[in-house]
């Protein structure tokens, strides 16, 4: 009885090591796993006995057959998917993700490697390092595995020769120098005979290193985790009653303690951790991969997809990023298409911006490619509809990974490892393509038509888009025009940078992609207001013809009235009240149109206002005249007339 208690005590405090194996069909990978399982006494007796029915009695049980789970595969004689195996020793519990080596199955190798701490790569001693072994090492390195065991198998068939082993070892290390793997051990083995698998072989006295199992039991892998950067993706909100609320999730990285000051993204809400709540009582600290829930000091609005971090250590919060993507579906990637991305606990719509290159996994050569097909790997730039909170995969496996799924088939089509955000000068400045993604199927529709609204307001809704430099006085004209229209009982709304940036676009900065997104929102808002019958006066710098055209397309060309507020830079500087030019002079502001950033004057605006020579009143009158002439305003409605008396 005491023995059992001792056994239990010892076995509840074991470490868990996850392994992926990869090997070609004939490398003897299954035999090696079978050997590990058999020799660590974990193959149950009846598994062995049912196996005996499949092989002739005079042969030793084929260890590889034991591992082939599915019937179809047994018929084909190969393993075709990822199979998980379990065994343990008194020191550790092991989970093996057994993945096939056939070249069709890069997908499965990546799958197995995604959760592994260590990878075993098989090499047939007779053949040396073939492309398949190289591919496995590359994928292991791509998926962030820092420990690799190279098992040089079938040493019995090359007479246990040291020279053969040394030459293979050198070949492999030469190749691996190009990869990012910190810990590589090359071991001569014979899986069939058990040499150097569990215990050291007497056949190869020249080999002084450890056996495979010895390494599996000893390898230090806990330091591979990121314990620095706290990332807690909120997975589920627990709210058993009105007085209790806690945020459940798995600690992706870093360490969290009660009392820690935290920041919730994307809301930028600050609070403190009140307690870490679990079924087994409150905890003093939590770290990966623990699943916990935490209460905060303040009543804040937090939901699934948010991320809790330390305020002085933030992840990237970006919509544009680059990633290495492994394509996993029969249908190739649709460049320029949309997919669903799942990252941490967020699912969002993502656009494939462009392919940088694909990688030949055998040679590591980069090549130009327009898309990725099944089992291909490439570097891709992507844009999500809302920011993801991520870290580069090389820094943080948990917040650097994502999967892509197809909207139609729901298949998991790709897996990605984020390299980093896109540098500002390479992000797409494209308003229109992002807007496409918002063109989702509409459900219930309003029963009030645009025509009804036109009758009600006596106006043909449009957006008067004022473009011009900072300090050109766009907003003055906008508000003067608003007043004039309002006095005539027209229904009108002004959108300007200050208003929109303080709310709708408060999450956006002044980088080119953020500017594009900001204007996309303004354009969307204008369209909605127009759809509802209102006239919009939009006052935005909008420095390029391309952006203005995209805005016009979103709003609708016939509703878009472009007014160019023209003034020289010198005049604008002199009349500027925003302080932008002063900031620029002091070097505190960049990308200021007219200074270090180009302002393209509109090619054919509907109206041009010579700001330096014209009074506000005159400008407003000219705009009103233009609107009346183009039939946007019903003259019978305006001039202070009552709506109810318009029946005559």
């Amino acid at each position, binding site marked *: 009885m005491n023995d059992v208690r001792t056994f239990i005590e010892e076995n509840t405090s074991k470490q868990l090591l996850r392994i992926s194996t990869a090997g070609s069909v004939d490398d003897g990978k299954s035999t090696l796993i079978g050997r590990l399982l058999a020799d660590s006494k974990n193959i149950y007796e009846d598994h062995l006995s049912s196996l005996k029915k499949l092989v002739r009695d005079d042969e030793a049980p084929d260890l590889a057959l034991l591992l082939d789970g599915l019937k179809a595969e047994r018929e084909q004689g190969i393993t075709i998917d990822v199979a998980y195996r*379990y065994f343990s020793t008194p020191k550790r519990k092991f989970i093996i993700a057994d993945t096939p080596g056939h070249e069709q199955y890069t997908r499965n190798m990546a799958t197995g490697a*995604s959760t592994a701490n260590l990878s075993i790569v098989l090499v047939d001693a007779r053949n040396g390092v073939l492309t398949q072994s190289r591919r496995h090492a590359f994928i292991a390195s791509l998926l962030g595995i820092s420990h690799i065991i190279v098992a040089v198998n079938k040493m019995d068939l090359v007479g246990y020769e040291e020279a053969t082993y040394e030459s293979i070892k050198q070949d492999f290390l030469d190749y691996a120098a190009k990869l990012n793997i910190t810990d590589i051990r090359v071991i001569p083995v014979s899986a069939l005979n058990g040499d150097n698998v569990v215990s050291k072989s007497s056949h190869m006295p020249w080999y002084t290193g450890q056996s495979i199992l010895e390494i599996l039991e000893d390898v230090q892998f806990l330091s591979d985790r990121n314990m620095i950067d706290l990332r807690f993706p909120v997975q589920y909100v627990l709210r058993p009653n009105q007085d209790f609320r806690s945020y459940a999730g798995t600690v992706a990285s870093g360490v969290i303690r009660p009392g820690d000051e935290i920041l919730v993204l994307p809301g930028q809400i600050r609070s403190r951790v009140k307690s870490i709540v679990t079924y087994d009582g409150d905890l003093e600290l939590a770290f990966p991969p623990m699943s916990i829930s935490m209460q905060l000091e303040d009543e804040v609005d937090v939901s699934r997809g948010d991320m809790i971090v330390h305020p002085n250590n933030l992840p990237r919060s970006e919509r544009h990023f680059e990633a290495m993507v492994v394509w996993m579906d029969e249908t190739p990637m649709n460049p320029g298409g949309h997919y669903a991305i799942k990252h941490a606990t967020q699912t969002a719509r993502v656009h494939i911006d462009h392919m940088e290159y694909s990688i030949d996994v055998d040679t590591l050569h980069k090549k130009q490619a327009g898309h990725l097909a099944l089992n291909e790997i490439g570097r891709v730039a992507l844009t999500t509809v809302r920011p993801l909170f991520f870290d580069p995969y090389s820094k943080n496996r948990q917040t650097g990974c994502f999967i892509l799924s197809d909207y139609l088939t729901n298949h998991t089509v790709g897996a990605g490892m984020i390299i980093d955000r896109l540098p500002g000068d390479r992000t797409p400045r494209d308003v229109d393509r992002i807007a496409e993604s918002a063109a989702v199927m509409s459900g219930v529709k309003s029963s009030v038509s645009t025509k009804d609204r036109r009758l009600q307001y006596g106006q043909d809704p449009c957006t008067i888009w004022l473009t011009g430099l900072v300090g050109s006085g766009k907003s003055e004209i906008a508000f003067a025009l608003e007043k004039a229209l309002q006095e005539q009982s027209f229904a009108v709304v002004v959108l300007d940078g200050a208003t929109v940036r303080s709310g709708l676009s408060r999450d956006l900065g002044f980088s080119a992609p953020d500017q594009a997104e900001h204007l996309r929102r303004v354009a969307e808002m204008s369209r909605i207001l127009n759809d509802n019958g209102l006239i919009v006066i939009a006052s935005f710098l909008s420095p390029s013809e391309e952006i203005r055209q995209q805005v016009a397309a979103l709003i609708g060309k016939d509703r878009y009235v472009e007014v160019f507020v023209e003034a020289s830079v010198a005049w604008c500087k002199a009349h500027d009240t925003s302080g932008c030019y002063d900031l620029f002079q002091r070097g505190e502001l960049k990308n200021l149109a007219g200074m270090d950033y180009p302002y393209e004057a509109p090619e054919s605006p509907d109206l041009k206002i010579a700001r330096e020579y014209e009074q506000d009143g005159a400008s407003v009158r000219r705009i009103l005249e233009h609107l009346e002439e183009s039939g946007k305003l019903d003259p019978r409605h305006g001039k202070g007339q009552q709506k109810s008396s318009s029946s005559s």
Partner: protein
Amino acid sequence: MSNYSISHLQQLEAESIHILREVASEFEHPVMMYSVGKDSSVMLRLAQKAFFPQKLPFPLLHVDTGFKFKDMYTFRDRMASELGAELVVHRNETAITDGANPFDLGTQRCCGLLKTQALLDALKAGDYDAAIGGARREEEKSRAKERVFSFRDQFGQWDPKSQRPELWNLYNCQIAQGESIRVFPLSNWTELDIWMYIDKEDIPVVPMYFAREQDVVVRGEQLIPIDATTRMLPGEKSERICCRFRTLGCSPCTGAIRSDAKSVADIIAEMMTVRISERSTRIIDHDQEGSMELKKREGYF
């Protein structure tokens, strides 16, 4: 928790909790299969932990063949009421009324009607889009390749050749109308892990797991306990043997093993010395080579 390290059991626990929370977040009508066995008991405790201090956000579903042991029904009802969980019991009443039984139909057909068909009907009746089950990859060969989130078409069928790749802890939960997902939070647990966890957490299990003297029929390597439904084959006689159940299924089809293990620690001790794969005491798995895979394709858990 020294060196910021947690044990393998704590890691398995954390992984299962993550999976359960993911199901509750991503699906509209999840349900947890409750089969009353030890794996179900562990799963229930994990669900309590995942949603503490809230109640379970999904009901428990027991697919009842009518052939379960009496102890199992008692235990089931006790657990559901202790947890305050909603318990849905589903039976294929038509087949039960028609007298479906393994003696006349054979285990394959009987299982098909009372388990697989009943399960599919129950999932349809409850409009469940995700069914959480206690299967473990280690249990049986065809399960080793099963995903944690396993996709089923609108007929509840599994296609082993077109499974969604599963990477990191990112589970694809997208399905179309009528399709569903089977979720296996215990995928990476072994039988030993289960018992170690039951011991560590002091989780209640059906007393049938513990050895006692009882009347059985010895049939091949199986010990079949004698109760009202038992039919003796010619030449068989009842014997009194100290035995216990390693898995709990239907009374006519579940064999006991000779054992003196009267506590969880005894069972763990027994496991260290007796190495027999646990499902081998379930008659159904041995009917046909690859039988489990066939059943799974059709919709069996």
